[in-house]
């Protein structure tokens, strides 16, 4: 049995904790079923799965206000669901349907949901990191005390956009939290082969005048705690925080990745500290779940994802003239 790491003293109420566990289960099942649909060629293009990293998104987004902003990279299904996206809207997007969260125009890498301030999945590595600073710039400009939470992978640490945005975020004390989900792999290149300095908290915050803190991101409540502290700092006008969330992904970079760059043993070792299993142990120890309630929760999650897939498969394709809509706010004139 996995050993519980989280602090003995809970930082959340029972109801919140069960909701977080449920969200992680939803994400895991959504991803595993997506893999099957991809193999059956129902989902096309590039598809990057989040399995193993669930506690990063659920723990950190879980402590935000509803009006805060969330933005992430292309491995975006988990963050969208944690932010409140209905699995059916995400699944329909993966299948390219008009009922998808981006009307079938975005795909797996470009989930958006404006009414939850979910500001997108973004598919150019590092490109969304300045956008996050822009949301935070607007919050400071307006004085609305909103916080922006921005996720990216360890590969994005090596992009120039990150350096430029971090410098301005630090210089202007913008209310933004930058979370690197360090899963040790920049696509197929291990951290020690892509980063000159292995301790990312030395690369991420301090060089730009804001704190960098590392956290075991398999421990959802630890993840929640550091994010809440960072959010409080940001709302108090004290500027950005950089969080290195130490995590691991079970799947390849994308569905087309055979994962020849890591051993079976490494993967098995990582699975021993599965964030969902760990949290189940914690919640059992607190007496908040038992076999019966976990089984019930699993069954509900299974039904939710089954329903999402049914919905997505039955949803209509976009009309062909949709290709010319949503390009500009003003009437669009194709230059043909």
């Amino acid at each position, binding site marked *: 049995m996995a050993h519980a790491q989280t602090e003995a003293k809970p930082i959340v109420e029972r109801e919140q904790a069960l909701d977080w566990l449920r969200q992680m289960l939803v994400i895991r099942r959504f991803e595993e079923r997506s893999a099957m649909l991809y193999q059956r060629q129902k989902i096309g293009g590039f598809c990057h799965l989040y399995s193993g990293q669930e506690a990063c998104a659920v723990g950190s987004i879980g402590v935000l206000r509803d009006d805060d902003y969330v933005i992430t990279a292309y491995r975006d299904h988990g963050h969208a669901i944690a932010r409140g996206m209905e699995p059916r809207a995400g699944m329909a997007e993966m299948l390219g349907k008009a009922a998808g969260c*981006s009307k079938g125009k975005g795909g797996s890498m470009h989930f958006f949901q404006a009414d939850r301030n979910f500001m997108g999945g973004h598919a150019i590595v590092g490109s969304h990191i300045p956008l996050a600073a822009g949301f935070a710039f607007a919050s400071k400009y307006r004085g609305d005390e909103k916080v922006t939470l921005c996720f990216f992978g360890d590969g994005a640490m090596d992009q120039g956009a990150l350096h430029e945005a971090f410098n*301005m975020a630090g210089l202007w004390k913008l209310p933004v939290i930058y979370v690197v989900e360090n899963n040790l792999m920049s696509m197929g290149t291990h951290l020690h082969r892509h980063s000159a300095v292995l301790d990312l908290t030395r690369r991420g915050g301090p060089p730009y005048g804001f704190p960098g803190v590392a956290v075991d991101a398999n421990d959802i409540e630890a993840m929640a705690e550091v994010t809440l502290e960072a959010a409080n700092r940001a709302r108090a006008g004290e500027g950005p925080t950089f969080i290195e969330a130490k995590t691991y992904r079970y799947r390849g970079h994308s569905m087309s990745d055979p994962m020849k760059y890591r051993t079976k043993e490494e993967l098995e070792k990582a699975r021993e500290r599965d964030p969902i299993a760990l949290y189940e142990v914690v919640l059992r120890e607190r007496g908040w779940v038992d076999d019966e309630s976990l089984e019930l929760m699993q069954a509900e999650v299974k039904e939710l994802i089954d329903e999402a897939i049914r919905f997505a498969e039955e949803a209509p394709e976009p009309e062909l003239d949709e290709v010319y809509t949503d390009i*500009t706010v003003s009437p669009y004139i194709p230059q043909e």
Partner: protein
Amino acid sequence: MAVMQYREALNLAMTEEMERDDRVFLMGEEVAEYNGAYKVSQGMLDRFGEKRIVDTPISENGFAGIGIGAAMVGLRPIVEFMTFSFSYVAFDQLVNNAANMRYMSGGQFNVPIVFRGNSGIAGNLGATHSHRPEALFAHFPGLKVMMPSTPSDAKGMLKAAIRDDDPVIFIEHENLLGDKGDVSEDPDFVVPIGKADVKREGSDVTIITYSRSVITSLKAAEKLEEEGVSAEVLDMRTIRPLDLDAILNSVTKTHRAIIVEENWPYCGIGAGVADRIYRAAFDELDAPIQRVTAKDAPLPYNRRLELDMLPSVERVVEAVNQVLYR
């Protein structure tokens, strides 16, 4: 009406729009305390304060992205590139994020932002500082591209760009900044996006052009008039979306056209415009369209070589003579 420089007209447009709408702010290198590298934002820091006139580090990709982010959540940024040659460092933000955001999000987010700054073959600046980026940006669905040739257009077009709800690439010309002309002081004077302008009427040939090449073309038209040729000079003003109706109206009248631009020829603006004319009005043409462009080489530092690259009055006249079979 007041007589003012092109740069002063740009300043007035921004000032009026910032007075009108507190969501509008200006961001870029040296725009505040330095009063603008080309003095376009002269005095704006004093007027609006550092919250709304924002000096940035030399981080074009970073501050372009910050502007796009701020626009996605409802502000209306004006982002100045010291020159548009430097926008290439921010290319990813402009073509991936600004251009695609509305589409990728299925219409949920729009990006009301203006990227502005000068460009052009401006004088001894060499290959890296003489770019004409309009053909690149006009290629992208989702972007609008505007290029004013006169102080009046500079003001009216920039106001339209700031009021627009989509990303606008607003490209000024370094050599036009000091040009003087009549400019309306009416705060409601706006030149709409997508509207070309006949800068000189004529009946024998249409010279389709934009930005500084309008000035060159007007000089050529004067010279041609002395030779008994009546040339119409049509200023495109907006590069994307193209005012095809205005072009076809003129070509249907004159039956001959040349296209003058400071761009390189291959895949330049003229290539796209000529294609549109041929497909829409081939039967109206009495001669193949001729193009006058920069020569197809990187920009040399040497002034003599540089001047030889540029569309000149002589080259415009020569192209007109070709389509008139003179």
